[in-house]
């Protein structure tokens, strides 16, 4: 069994926040913090980049929007021209609602699936799940994991760092 890394437990968001700043400053890259809720500002403390999700959503929403607009024109004007309710075949006001709904739908589907895809979920197994204390990550405990595949990972140094940040316990995770 190879080691996945170290798991440190913290009691509150303030400790976690301070610890994250230290781990970030120590130069680790393959590490993570886990918390029961989104701790405000933790992304800054960890030095995380903003999510790329909005760009995906923007791109796909605009594509969906353009597609639906032209699809309606094609279907109404070219594919099967048919005058209904005395409305011209090409009538932009009447295209607005479906056009709009398709835009929203493509944006929301992207946001939803993009969220899971970018996060690599669903992932039903994770080494941290083998830790007994980690079960409280969705309740009231806070964790930091430093992975052993981090280029500058050194078990003793990392453990010392985590202990020094006030972790209530540090344990090793197996892969």
């Amino acid at each position, binding site marked *: 069994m190879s080691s996945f890394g170290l798991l440190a437990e913290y009691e509150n968001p303030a400790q976690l926040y301070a610890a994250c700043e230290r781990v970030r400053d120590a130069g680790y890259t393959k590490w993570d913090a886990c918390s029961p809720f989104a701790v405000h500002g933790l992304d800054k403390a960890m030095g995380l980049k903003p999510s790329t999700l909005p760009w995906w959503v923007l791109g796909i929403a605009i594509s969906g929007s353009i597609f639906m607009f032209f699809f309606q024109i094609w279907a109404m004007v070219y594919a099967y021209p048919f005058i209904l309710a005395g409305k011209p075949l090409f009538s932009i006001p009447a295209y607005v609602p479906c056009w709009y709904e398709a835009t929203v739908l493509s944006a929301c*589907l992207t946001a939803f699936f993009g969220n899971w895809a970018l996060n690599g979920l669903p992932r039903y197994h994770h080494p941290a799940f083998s830790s007994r204390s980690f079960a409280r990550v969705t309740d009231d405990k806070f964790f930091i994991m430093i992975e052993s595949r981090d280029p500058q990972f050194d078990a003793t140094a990392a453990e010392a760092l985590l202990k020094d940040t006030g972790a209530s316990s540090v344990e090793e995770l197996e892969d």
Partner: protein
Amino acid sequence: MANAAPSTSLALPDDPNVRGDIVLEDPIEGREPLVRGDRDFHYITEAVCRGNELPLMKTPSTFVFGLLLAFAGFLLFGGYVGWLFWEGPGIWGNNNPVSWAWDIVNFVFWVGIGHAGTLISAILYLFRQKWRMGVNRYAEAMTIFAVICAASCVVLHTGRIWLDYFLFPIPNQMQLWPNFRSPLEWDVFAVNTYFTVSLLFWFTGLVPDFATLRDRATVKWRQLFYGALALGWRGSARHWVTYEKAYQILAAFSAPLVLSVHSVVSFDFAVSQLPGWHTTIFPPYFVAGAIFGGFAMVQNLIIPARAWLGLKDIITIRHIENMNKIILLTGSLVGYAYGMEFFVAAYSGNEYEGFTFINRAFGPYWWAYWIMLSCNVLSPQLFWFKKLRTNLYLSWIVAALVNTGMWFERFVICVTSLHRDALPSSWEYFVPRTEVLFLLGTFGLFLFLFLLFIRFFPVIAISEVKTILPQANPHWEGYAHAKGGH
């Protein structure tokens, strides 16, 4: 975090069943704490999960009774659908000219109910109204179940139900597409988008809470059930970043959805030339009415539920009061729209417009109009008084009245506008035949789903409510004191 600064150090009683009902004065400085009692993160987890984690066999008998009752309603719904399928819409009282009656009334009623959920989860989220976190999960669940009811009404009203797939733009050998220039097709798009987005939004919010239930599960089925739904969520900060962005985007797109869905529903009526339907204020008026009715339904569900589940510390009287204020606001907006319609009918100098509105108020269906007006416009005005809007019983009663009024509003719009059309020889009075069973059936379906939701899903957004506790802020002053000389 000014929102969480406990400004009133008023001694509240310790009994959690009383504390949440104590009415505090509107502070002019600082904010009332959103969660009452000095609560920690673990309390929130416990309080919310308690109900879900009761062993199946120990479900309280009152709940089982309620569930069975709702199930009976659900069966009624199923039976009615079967009957409708077999006989066709001939079992309704619809006639010519009243070709749209209870079926559409029910549809508009239910789809309107849903709007409060979307408003709470999307618009109040964007406005950073943190009190919404106590109630958003209920309201979102309500949205989904209400839209299911609405969709079933509209799917079933087409007559030849088995041909409903015509509504969708499915490539076919005739190369025929649905008419995108028809308001009814807009409706198909609007309602489907609305349902899909609401479901995605709701599920996204639920995932971290499913993970909580998964991690606490002691029984195999619960581990598997919640484990599967939780998608392996582990609260990673890297995930939270994208997750929150996704949540924000979903909220941002749901916000205009609140406007668009009921607007499109209103177009079904308003783009016609029928006096009483054809009026430009319909879209915002329908939206205001939808939010109005939706909040009333939230009140009707949440006032008993918070007491029953012992969640009064999280859903306090302040939540009820805030929602009553929204009911007052939207009720008044609806009143504005009624008034504006009436005024413009008179102002227009158009005889047909004038006749329709006089007929609404004083014609054969005068009673429906006055029920609508007194329930929707007058009864919420009681909420001008703090004493009344913080009275739980009264809030519940007014909410029930508003729901009644909103149903009648749709009845007034549909039936009274149609029953006197341009040709007096075809005037006809609409009398329902079996439709009341349809309405009861949809209520059965709605309550059945809702009770199942209460039993098995976390009814409060656990991970969100934790963020509004003062200690969720890593820079909370409490930590600075604890650290001392650090």
